[in-house]
């Protein structure tokens, strides 16, 4: 067997209250695509941050080509040929692609654009990664940004490329293209590390997989041993229901009705364009789409947080287009935003204070001037118990809660108001399998109580599991809509990118989604 490029030996990393990595060993060989699989919180991101020099391990060794090296900063990691593509891209948005690629490089004092462009072009040719060096980052689609990150690492001479959840934000077609590129890199003798929690991806592309559970290596599987059942067993340590029992929807009257709604995003550019959409009582409408195609704006328009330029929003046939957020809340619209902490919940406030965020003004919780602390505390105790939120104390600021508990707390508040309409964005993002299951069950239960639910997600699996009807949003418009029985994954993927293919979009350098 060849000598490993990198070998991690006995890595330990502690965070306050968490043992993120517990004596982890791993070896990376040239030419392989190595998947690191684990649930959220299993320690895979921490391990990779150690490899990238961002965190320093408390114990353990990193061997590069058989020699122990200390990584004290990302500079060292880059020096030893390790390039990291983070899940949250480390790109400077107002800069051009070329500026981002040369950033941090130690070369000439003056910037030389021409030399840089030539080299980017050469790399692009060699690995089949085409990018326009003059485009500004904010103009690019997510897939293109990812390509910039990869090219940047190759430009810095990386032999080991680490990608953290690279397909989380891509369409199936974009993901396919990424995999082709990664294959090409591996055959050029690079080692590619793929951090993921998606089993099908691992099966499709990985040569070897290391499974982490609770900070430890639960097992290493070679290509011929990789099966979904085995991976789940290692990852979760128990059997998991891969599908829910679905009750047919008894969809009734239309609750939410959007008619040709146009709205601007924060930059003042139209991001909803005459978008029309209907959600009925007792159904889950799953809205698929690559994030940044107007989802956030759509949700905010419904919640009254964003002004609409034209069109009409109705709730139960009553127009709510220009109502204030408070009026819309009081009419029975719940909204679970994508920023759990910072929008949905206030990090510095405690559980009791967060649970009355939307109804503190109602006579139940306050008089004309003063709050009713006893009622508020009782209310919090009941909800925390009913929704099984795990917390140390009701008086503790919620920022110290885990992602799963935050989401449960948020859903507890939003569901307890018995809403007519519930808008949820990316409800399971960043949650582990257990928490995801709990969140999904809450939504299905809410549906059975006749609430109309608009589920906005970029995770097609989630939509297929929960939705009764599926719509695709692209470029601020509803780009197709089907009942769940007629939904075809391939077609949804194509619609998510508009009718045009990836190649076309890159060639004419058009900003993909504004």
């Amino acid at each position, binding site marked *: 067997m060849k000598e490993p490029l990198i070998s991690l030996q006995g890595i330990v990393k502690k965070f306050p209250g968490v043992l993120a990595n517990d004596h982890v060993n791993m070896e990376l060989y040239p030419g392989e695509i190595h998947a690191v699989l684990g649930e959220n919180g299993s320690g895979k991101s921490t391990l990779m941050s150690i490899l990238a020099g961002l965190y320093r391990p408390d114990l353990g060794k990193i061997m590069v080509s058989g020699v122990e090296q200390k990584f004290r900063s990302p500079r060292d990691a880059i020096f030893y040929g390790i390039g990291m593509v983070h899940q949250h891209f480390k790109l400077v948005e107002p800069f051009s692609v070329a500026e981002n690629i040369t950033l941090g490089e130690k070369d000439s004092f003056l910037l030389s654009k021409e030399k840089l462009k030539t080299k980017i072009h050469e790399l692009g040719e060699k690995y089949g990664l085409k990018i326009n060096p003059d485009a500004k980052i904010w103009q690019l689609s997510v897939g293109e940004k990812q390509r910039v990150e990869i090219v940047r690492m190759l430009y810095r001479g990386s032999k080991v490329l680490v990608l953290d959840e690279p397909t989380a934000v891509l369409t199936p077609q974009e993901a396919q293209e990424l995999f082709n590129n990664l294959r090409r890199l591996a055959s050029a003798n690079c080692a590619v590390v793929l951090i993921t929690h998606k089993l099908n991806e691992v099966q499709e592309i990985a040569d070897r997989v290391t499974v982490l559970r609770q900070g430890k290596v639960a097992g290493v599987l070679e290509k011929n041993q990789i099966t979904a059942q085995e991976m789940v067993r290692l990852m979760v340590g128990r059997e998991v229901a891969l599908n829910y029992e679905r009750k047919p929807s008894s969809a009734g009257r239309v609750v939410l009705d959007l008619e040709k709604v146009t709205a601007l995003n924060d930059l003042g550019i139209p991001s909803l364009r005459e978008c029309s959409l209907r959600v009925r009582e007792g159904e889950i409408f799953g809205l698929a789409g690559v994030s940044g195609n107007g989802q956030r704006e759509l949700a905010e328009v419904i919640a009254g947080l964003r002004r609409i330029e034209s069109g009409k929003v109705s709730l139960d046939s009553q127009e709510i287009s220009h109502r204030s957020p408070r009026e819309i809340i009081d009419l029975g619209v719940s909204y679970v935003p994508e920023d759990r902490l910072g929008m949905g919940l206030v990090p510095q406030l405690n559980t009791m204070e967060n649970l009355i*965020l939307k109804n503190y003004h109602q006579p139940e919780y306050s008089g004309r001037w003063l709050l009713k602390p006893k009622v508020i505390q009782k209310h919090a105790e009941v909800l925390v118990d009913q929704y099984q939120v795990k917390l140390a104390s009701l008086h503790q600021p919620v920022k110290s809660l885990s992602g799963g508990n935050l989401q449960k707390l948020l859903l507890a508040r939003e569901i307890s108001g018995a809403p007519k309409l519930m808008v949820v964005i990316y409800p399971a993002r960043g949650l582990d399998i257990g928490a995801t299951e709990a969140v999904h069950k809450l939504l299905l239960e809410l549906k059975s109580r006749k609430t109309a639910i608009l589920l906005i997600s970029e995770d097609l699996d989630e939509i297929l599991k929960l939705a009764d009807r599926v719509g695709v949003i692209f470029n601020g418009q509803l780009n197709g809509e089907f009942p769940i029985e007629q939904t075809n994954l391939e077609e949804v993927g194509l619609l998510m990118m508009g009718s045009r293919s990836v190649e076309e979009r890159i060639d004419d350098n058009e900003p993909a989604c504004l």
Partner: protein
Amino acid sequence: MNRLAFKLEKRLNPSPAMIAIVPLISVLLALLLGAIFLSLTGQNPLAVYATMFGEALGSKYGFTETLVKAIPLMLSALGISIAFKMQLWNIGAEGQLYMGALAATWLPLTYPNLPAYLMLPGMAMLAMAAGGIWGLIAAIPKAIWKVDEIITTLMLNYVAILWVDYLVYGPWKDPKGFNFPFTAQFPGAARLPGLGDSRVNAGLVLAVLLAILLAVVFKYSRWGYELKVIGASEQSARYAGMHIKKKILVVLFLSGAISGLAGMTEVSGIVGRLQHGISPGYGYTAIIVAWLSKLNPLAIVLVSILFGALQVGGYAVQVVGVPAAVASMLQGAILFFVLGGEVLTNYRIRRAQRGEK
């Protein structure tokens, strides 16, 4: 490249012991630093401190003077705390105080014969309105266009001070005042009554009552809850349907109004007329008081007295040849240590293994 041999580790919960101890230690460390500085510049630190605190706290006269200085500090700091709660950085208390003093002065100068029961409330209302409007001038562009209130409130301080100067050097100058920059003496009806025979005036009672009221508002009221939510996360507040713009206007108005009241108690309770330099920077010191008190109204009452003492002590040491500026130097240093010390309440310092070369 230096590697620090320790690292900060975030505490899951702020340490309650540290919240109380840090301000105390900060004051002591600042005094220690001040002592080193004093001896470096050829002073005897013990003698200087003895003069400072002996004067400010040791005699009945000194202590009443300390309370006299504490009144405008309390009022301004209470005003500031309302704005700071909402993360509105109103550093215009000084100007709002001047405007309050100016507006309060207008009434006795224009209608000198009003009876006290009309005069005093009238002066207070005018002072609060003027201080409030001064805050509102910064609040309106903040609410509409998000114009940085730090700079606008601060610039307005200079404008207010110059306005008062214009009046006391010009149209409002006392004709019988030998050309000194002050207005005529107020009639008796325009003077706040004192407590006993001291110079401490009824403003102290007002400030303490206001502190208690604010403590209740911050902790138990709907309004205070909204303030807390908006201050912690504007996004969440919008999401919860709160009216942020309206709140910015109301909060800066109130904040300015309370500082304006401090201006009224100064001219009416202490000086008895409007004059050049009516405040030696109370509005700025009050910022430190508010922060040191962690925006807790009851703590503000106590910390104001400490800082009043520092102010009185600053004047006292001038007699032994030390510049009064030593007081504001110490104030700044206290704040440095408090800020640095806050790290101890939120983080735990741990030794990290040194990266070998």
